[in-house]
């Protein structure tokens, strides 16, 4: 029998190769993919987020963990799909707003969300409101995540929210915002539904909005 705690460790330490090997080994032992994801992989990502928040690890470690997680998910998801299981607990479109090129924070949020079971469509940086509207419509997103790192670009979040309203989509999608200069106060001021200070709290915020909270 594969020691599944090693899978937890592999993701925590960002070891992509061992994560893949252990995932395959677990499947060979007939372990349910859902059990692997819920009990080991998501927990590992939760710990990664916590350590990042406490500055025990930094961006590279988080990116490595995200990459290992993704590699395992890529093996498990097709199997779950084939057996008719749900592979995602919700769909999130995420991007950095127009005029803003910062994408590290947004990527970390995207990878934490993915790690925690969401399907994430990352549309990139420097995105105008039409692109956000298009993506929300095309993917039928449950949640839209907006990122901004500049005081000069944060007001654009409101432009995006207004555009969604004009397109008649505002009631169909929950909006969470984040990025270093963003505060909970600002989030409610511009009419967002949620706010996350870190990648971890981003996950909590999204879960709460979808009624998936613990």
């Amino acid at each position, binding site marked *: 029998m594969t020691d599944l705690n090693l899978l937890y460790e592999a993701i925590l330490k960002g070891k992509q190769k061992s994560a893949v090997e252990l995932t395959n080994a677990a499947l060979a032992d007939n372990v349910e993919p859902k059990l692997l994801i819920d009990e080991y992989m998501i927990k590992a990502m939760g710990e990664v987020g916590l350590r990042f928040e406490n500055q025990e*690890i*930094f*961006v*590279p*470690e988080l*990116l*490595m963990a995200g990459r290992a997680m993704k590699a395992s998910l890529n093996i498990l998801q097709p199997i779950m799909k084939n057996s008719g299981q749900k592979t995602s607990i919700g769909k999130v479109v995420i991007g950095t707003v127009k005029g803003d090129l910062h994408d590290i924070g947004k990527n970390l949020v995207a990878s934490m969300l993915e790690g925690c079971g969401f399907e994430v469509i990352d549309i990139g940086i420097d995105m105008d409101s039409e692109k956000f509207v298009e993506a929300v419509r095309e993917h039928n997103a449950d949640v839209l995540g907006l990122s901004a790192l500049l005081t000069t670009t944060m007001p654009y979040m409101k432009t995006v929210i207004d555009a969604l309203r004009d397109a008649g989509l505002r009631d169909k999608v929950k909006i969470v915002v984040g990025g270093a200069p963003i505060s909970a106060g600002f989030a409610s001021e511009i009419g967002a539904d949620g706010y996350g200070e870190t990648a971890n709290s981003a996950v909590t915020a999204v879960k709460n909005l979808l009624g998936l909270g613990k």
Partner: protein
Amino acid sequence: MTKLTPYDRLKAVLDGENTKNLDRAPNLNILMFFAAYYINAPFGKFCTDYKTLVEGNLRCVEKFDIDVLSTMSDPVRETADFGTELDIPEDELPHPKRVLLPNIEDVQNLQLFDPLKSVRILDRIKAIELFKKERGDEYPILGWVEGPLAEASDLRGINDALIDVIDEDNEELFYELLEKCTQEAIWCAKAQVEAGAHIIGVGDAACSLINRDLYREKIVPYEKRIVEGIKQAGGIARLHICGNINHILEDIATVGFDIVDIDWMVDMKHAVEVMQGTGAVINGNIDPVAVVLNGSVSDVKNAVYKCRKEANGRAIISAGCEIPKFTKHENLLAFAEALYEQI
């Protein structure tokens, strides 16, 4: 107290003089977007036309009592000269259209360029020459190069570079990339000192995002070589890393920089202590956004007083990072005034 020239003021501090014995502490506030906006020039032009950059800086240093003629504009000058195609919006920051090295193996084809035959570094060299002609004996002139991790990030894309730096599988290739970035930085630094730059700034922003061991083991050796190169050419070496560098200050102290910039999240008092005896002078660390951009005149003055007290005459006083474009002139004037005032 006799009013010093900006050059003599900075020189005195670098020679170990306490700023309390001078007319005031030097002011090395970083102007990029602000300087372009001040002369109504679009930022794209400021980045690509040295005459615009020089005019913006000359007019700002006089008006706002700043002690350096800077050639800073954007982080992708070397990146472009290495062969990256840029998007240069009219009034925004130039950035790569696509990264030059999408795969780490591509580093094997990366060729160094001669700064004197380049485009964007040559434009910076021309700015230095023009500064020298205009005000070179009164003001220190600041050249600039990207540090090893910053340049690697610009060539690879920051997300991939931040994986490269930790990924053991591609270690050799990543070292090759750092090596090439370092050799190029030394070449560009020397060319700028020869053109008349007194100081060479090394921008290595991505270092605030990595852990201490990685910084010490993988980046410090390369930064050291750049510093040696600058000093051999006769220049003063300044480090600029935006963001929180509390966790790597002790290692930065070993690199040999003459000036170490700190952003507002860093503890001024602690940073000054860490640099004690290393020959490095701290430069910082007022919050550019919360205080300089969004604060009132008295907020700015109070922040400068506080910073001066914490530094106790042992630091250069500036904002921790670039002065934002829409900063009110009265705030930047207050900044300068607060440096002269008795506290």
